[in-house]
């Protein structure tokens, strides 16, 4: 069964701004490292060399950043401060990693009492404000850079411990770890060889976070006099001095402050970039299609019958593409035309990557980030939805068209009761009062075949079984009596016996409400059950369209035929089972000619040119050999 993976727009790179920032961040950190290493050779003055007669001077040619209260060169002290920053960051981070990671890995994998006790201790430590832990440890060890860094190292080791443990706990449940256990790898082998490499990316991110935090903490501790001891220059002690001379020379606070900010900023930015690239951490916001492209009008459509009065949806020449910011468009649906009328169920069938789900979403104008309709028209009850303003489209959604999604447990908001989610639609779309809406909710829930509707309305989605939740989703979709219902693999996530009930429910509801249904599925058998007409999609194109009986009796496109013969119920007996060789090409890798060409047994030279969709009487096919198959079928 296909887990219809929602189209994930490939990571959209913004080479401009972000690349520049990353580059700058790395450059700054490199410069800092060099300064720290080469401080002895490049500083213009000895950082401790005082000149009391030239104290508290502003920037000058001799002293680029001026002098401090003792006439020491601020620039030189700043550069030596780099060294301390580097030492501090390295020392504390190393201690934190060496303490935290092995222990975290151990307790995470071992579990049991070890884990319980360690985690309670960690919780206790973490519940004390960090700086307090640090200063208590410093009270024990005494002030000074290295002692302060040991304190910070111990403090930050808790985050490494929790990270390592968390990763182990998560990875332990991963299937590949189960595989490793099945293979017979020992615990230590699994830990070191299988799990540990997966810790690396979040570990690197954590390291950058820790380095930033250490730098800030070191500055803070030095500022309150518990870190680096004067006269040695750290950025924190420089700020401590500056705090005393704010009135006489406020500029003293600028260089160390800027140094800290720039360094921490660079480290954090680097961490962000790493996190974005390893992709495990915070999701990056996909580029909103902020500027909607102008949709080109559809080419004249010949394959559709003339509009009739009961026609609900008419898609003409729809083309949609991934449109990255400043990149080249990658088409994912091309020249798709279809129509459906009241009381009819039109099936959209295809494998993943065929564009069937996107077709449904494009009707709702919910293609999502980075994907846009570039050409065509989507007419719902005669109105071209592509020309509507967002507000107007909102009015159409829910009222005229609604959608049921594949996974009912994720398509209902986990935070609200299911009844309130239906009521919300009724109240905002139909202006019902609270009481009216609730009455209607109970009625709807009852209508979709759920016993004890009042009670169920007050349940949260996670308290319902999958089938029950899908019924609720259907009730919500139908709450405003839309003329078109888009059902996107609504039974794929359900058990087969439940699937049957839901399909029956769709039929019953259609009989009662008379809406048109656009039924998206990968399962031809499901389509055979529910659909009146079926449109088979392959690689963003419609390859065949036929009334349901005709399609199964007389499939004409080689892909349709392949699919049908590959269905488990179709073939009987022992393998080898019929297959279609190869796999569906990804968008952007489509052949110029017939997109099925390289998998087709009937491929000829003629297939290497674009193939039009042709036919009449609701029977359409996109194949140069169509006539031949027709004859075959007739004979």
């Amino acid at each position, binding site marked *: 069964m296909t887990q219809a993976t929602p189209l994930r727009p490939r990571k959209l790179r913004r080479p401009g701004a972000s690349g520049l920032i990353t580059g700058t961040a790395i450059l700054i950190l490199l410069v800092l490292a060099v300064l720290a290493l080469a401080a002895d050779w490049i500083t213009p003055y000895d950082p401790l060399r005082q000149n009391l007669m030239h104290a508290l001077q502003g920037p000058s040619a001799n002293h680029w950043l001026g002098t401090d209260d003792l006439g020491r060169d601020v620039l030189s002290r700043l550069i030596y401060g780099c060294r301390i920053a580097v030492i501090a960051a390295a020392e504390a981070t190393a201690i934190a990693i060496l303490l935290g990671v092995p222990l975290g890995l151990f307790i995470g994998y071992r579990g049991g009492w070890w884990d319980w006790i360690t985690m309670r201790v960690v919780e206790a430590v973490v519940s*004390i404000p960090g700086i307090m832990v640090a200063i208590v440890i*410093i009270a024990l060890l005494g002030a000074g850079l290295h002692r302060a860094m040991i304190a910070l190292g111990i403090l930050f080791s808790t985050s490494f411990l929790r990270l390592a443990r968390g990763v182990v706990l998560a990875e332990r449940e991963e299937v590949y770890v189960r595989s490793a256990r099945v293979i017979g790898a020992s615990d230590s082998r699994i830990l070191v060889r299988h799990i540990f490499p997966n810790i690396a990316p979040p570990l690197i991110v954590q390291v950058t976070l820790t380095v930033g935090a250490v730098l800030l903490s070191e500055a803070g501790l030095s500022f309150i006099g518990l870190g680096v001891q004067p006269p040695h220059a750290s950025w924190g002690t420089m700020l401590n001095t500056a705090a005393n001379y704010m009135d006489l020379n406020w500029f003293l606070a600028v260089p160390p402050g800027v140094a800290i900010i720039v360094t921490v900023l660079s480290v954090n930015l680097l961490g962000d970039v790493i996190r974005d690239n390893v992709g495990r951490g915070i999701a990056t*916001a996909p*580029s909103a299609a902020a500027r909607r492209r102008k949709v080109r009008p559809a080419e004249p459509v010949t394959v559709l019958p003339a509009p009739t009065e009961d026609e609900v949806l008419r898609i003409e020449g729809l083309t949609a593409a991934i449109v990255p910011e400043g990149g080249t468009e990658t088409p994912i649906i091309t020249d798709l035309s279809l129509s459906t009328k009241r009381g009819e169920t039109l099936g959209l069938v295809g494998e993943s990557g065929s564009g069937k789900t996107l077709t449904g979403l494009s009707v709702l104008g919910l293609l999502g980030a980075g994907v846009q309709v570039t050409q065509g028209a989507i007419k719902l009850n005669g109105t071209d939805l592509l020309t509507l303003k967002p507000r107007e489209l909102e009015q159409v959604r829910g009222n005229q068209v609604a959608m049921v999604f594949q996974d009912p447990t994720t398509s*209902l908001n986990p935070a609200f009761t299911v009844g309130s989610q239906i009521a919300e639609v009724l109240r905002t779309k139909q202006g019902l009062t609270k009481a009216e809406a609730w009455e209607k909710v109970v009625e709807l829930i009852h209508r979709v075949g759920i016993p004890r509707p009042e009670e169920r309305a007050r349940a949260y989605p996670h308290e319902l079984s999958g089938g029950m939740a899908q019924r609720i989703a259907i009730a919500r979709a139908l709450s405003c009596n839309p003329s078109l219902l888009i059902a996107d693999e609504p039974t794929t996530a359900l058990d087969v016996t439940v699937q049957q009930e839901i399909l029956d429910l769709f039929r019953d509801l259609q009989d009662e409400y008379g809406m048109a249904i656009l039924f998206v599925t990968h399962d031809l058998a499901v389509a055979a059950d529910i659909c009146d007409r079926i449109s088979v999609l392959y690689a963003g194109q419609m390859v065949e369209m036929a009334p349901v009986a005709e399609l199964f009796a007389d499939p004409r496109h080689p892909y349709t035929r392949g699919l049908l013969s590959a269905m488990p119920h179709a073939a009987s007996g022992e393998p080898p089972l019929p297959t279609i060789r190869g796999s569906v090409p990804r968008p952007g890798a489509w052949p110029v000619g017939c997109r099925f060409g390289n998998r087709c047994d009937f491929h000829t030279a003629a297939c290497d040119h674009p193939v039009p969709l042709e036919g009449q009487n609701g029977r359409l096919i996109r194949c140069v050999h169509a006539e031949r198959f027709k004859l075959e079928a007739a004979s």
Partner: protein
Amino acid sequence: MFRLLLRRLLALVPLLFLVSVLTFSFTAMLPSDPVDLILGDTGTTEQHDMLRERMGLNDPVVVRYARWLGNAVQGDLGTSFFNSVDVTRAVMQRMPVTLSLTAVAALIAIATGIAAGVAAALYPRSWIDRLATIGATFGQAVPNFWFGLILVAIFAVNLHWFPATGFTPISQSPWDWLRSVTLPAVALGLSSSAAIARQVRSAMVGVLQMDYIRAARAQGLSARRVILRHALTNAMVPVIAVLSFQITVLLGGALIVEQVFAINGLGTLAITAVRQQDIPMIQGLVLVMVGMVVLVQLATDILYGLLNPKARPS
């Protein structure tokens, strides 16, 4: 809900116990001798021995711990080694100061953080988003004490809008209290605001990609409603955890920011106590701080339960 609360409260007992053990054993390792601290250089050997006996320092650590814990449970955290100040009283006197500083900072951080995060998530890649993101990244890199210095230089010393230092209790004058607490709270809240903004944004971005958001939009609910009701409610669930953590961070940050503004809160008390190796004071402070943190965590836990039906016991 009541059962959840009760269960949470029960779960706090071992945590507080563990913290008390940690604190006590840690402070017991401090290199200073309390008798020396108290008597200074003046005491005779007999006086030393007498005081040692009277303070029960000759008892085993476990006995001392039990005694200390017994008193602590009754609200008696002992007496400072350094002077005859009652630890409970000293801590309680400072608590409102640090608490109001932290609370105002938390309010500022939460309000600005959530607003910025939501705004950024609403208009991804827009100038608002970029501004918020850059601001948040910056905010996390600025040391709070440095920011405090700059704020003092600008708003107190030059513009005279706020007092440069000190703290006025709210009971004395709410207006002066607000004025005295504004600059330190802003300095303190900046990085938390940034952290919250980032978390809100990323949680929102994550939630906005969820099926139920698409489903709500497919239902024709307005973008505003979907974002503010459906997305934010769910995005707050991970944010709550960050909030709880950030309040601990704020409490710690207050220790340093208090120094900049010469505010006599728990931080000043703590740093003095640590410098003086004033063991009862350190123990009392840690325990009280943890108590505060734990209460905050409890509150956020309950909030978490309210927002996340799955976390409620059924």
